[in-house]
């Protein structure tokens, strides 16, 4: 494994840098934690969702203002899960938050929960772009579109918005789920099973565990990613080889032209004897 020069690969092939970063991470990963990353725009309920999945409201800060400006994580040693919270996308002008979030999903994410609040209506242009990038970067099996704050939308509004979103993401072939963290925590505090069930947080937990329990999940990703990178490199090498042959032909042609010109010149000189 150590034979692979990842730094050189990243430098030489910036187009697939993100895939190489992930490949490097998977190849050199020293722990066996299953990394779950939330990703999405600011104030769509990412931190709250992680808290609900962990079952503790106090793990990640939840406020209406922009609180998560760097990647934050919590390791659940018992379950072997590392929960990673990322800053909201498109929240700061410099784009630093986006960089942190992108680093997390590029490198560490074994599974990504793309979070969108139903309260905001359908996915906007920026979210669609983020999703497109994600689908390019990750296999669809490691992406789940989580639609949050279901409790804050009226039933008829929910139907319309959900219908629109389904159409929007149809092309990506993503699993999706609508959840309500408020309902979940209310259910927990009131010990109300119905509320908990309606929140769908447990369903989402099951979805995650299903992926996690596939023992060779990461091995498969590593193998597939390696194959993908090899395929890319083989194509690149083919292009380089074709280019080399073209340049060799060009060199031979130019040499032949030069020799012909010299020959013609000597033939003319001979006429002057």
């Amino acid at each position, binding site marked *: *494994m150590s*034979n*692979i*020069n990842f730094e*050189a*690969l990243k430098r*030489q092939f910036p187009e697939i840098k993100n895939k190489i970063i992930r490949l490097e991470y998977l*190849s050199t990963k020293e722990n066996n934690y299953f990394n779950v990353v939330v990703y999405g725009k600011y104030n769509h309920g990412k931190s709250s969702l992680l808290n609900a999945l962990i079952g503790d409201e106090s793990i990640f800060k939840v406020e209406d203002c922009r609180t998560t400006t760097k990647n934050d994580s919590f390791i659940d040693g018992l379950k072997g899960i590392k929960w990673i919270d990322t800053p909201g996308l498109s929240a700061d002008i410099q784009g630093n938050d986006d960089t942190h979030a992108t680093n997390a999903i590029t490198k560490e994410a074994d599974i990504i929960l793309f979070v969108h609040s139903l309260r905001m209506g359908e996915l906007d242009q920026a979210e669609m772009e983020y999703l497109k990038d994600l689908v390019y970067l990750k296999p669809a099996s490691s992406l789940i579109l989580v639609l949050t704050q279901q409790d804050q939308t009226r039933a008829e509004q929910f139907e319309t918005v959900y219908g629109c979103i389904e159409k929007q993401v149809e092309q990506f072939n993503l699993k999706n789920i609508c959840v309500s963290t408020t309902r979940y925590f209310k259910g927990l505090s009131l010990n109300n099973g119905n509320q908990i069930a309606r929140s769908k947080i447990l369903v989402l937990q099951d979805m995650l565990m299903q992926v996690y329990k596939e023992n060779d999940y990461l091995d498969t990703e590593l*193998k597939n990613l*390696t*194959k993908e*990178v*090899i395929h890319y*490199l*083989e194509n*690149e*090498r083919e292009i*380089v*080889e074709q*280019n*080399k042959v073209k*340049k*060799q032909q*060009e*060199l031979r042609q*130019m*040499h032949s032209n*030069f*020799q012909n*010109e*010299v*020959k013609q*010149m*000597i033939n*003319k*000189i*001979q006429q*002057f*004897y």
Partner: protein
Amino acid sequence: MPLPLLIGLGVAAAAAVAAVAITTSDDSSSSQHNADEQTKRKIEEENEKKRQQALNVQQQDLNKQKLNKRKLFFDTEFNRLSAKYDFDNKEKSSIQTLLISKENMRLLKARIDEHWPKTAVSKGLSKTIRDLDLESKTIEMHIKSLKEQTHG
């Protein structure tokens, strides 16, 4: 002695004298003639020599003119090649000396051909090919190490 005899003898003697005189006169004109011929030949030879010399001078002039033409043509063509293929033309004068003899044409061609690797176009393309070759080998190394990982 009867007169007719005397007259006869006289005529005969006169004829003999005349004959001697005629003979003497013939000898002297022949030697003169020979001398004239010799002088004529000498002059002719000298003229021929002069004509030959003039011809030689003329031929030399012609050769010089042809050599100059060759030099001029070579100069123009070599400069054109040097500009077109972008190479140093400082060896032009030394190559130009080969133009004296027609026997040197193969050597002349060889000497000009030697300039090909020094041309900017050859140097540039050769470097590009070397770089592409290195790039291809580097990619091949990456592929090999990635495949080793897959099989390992």
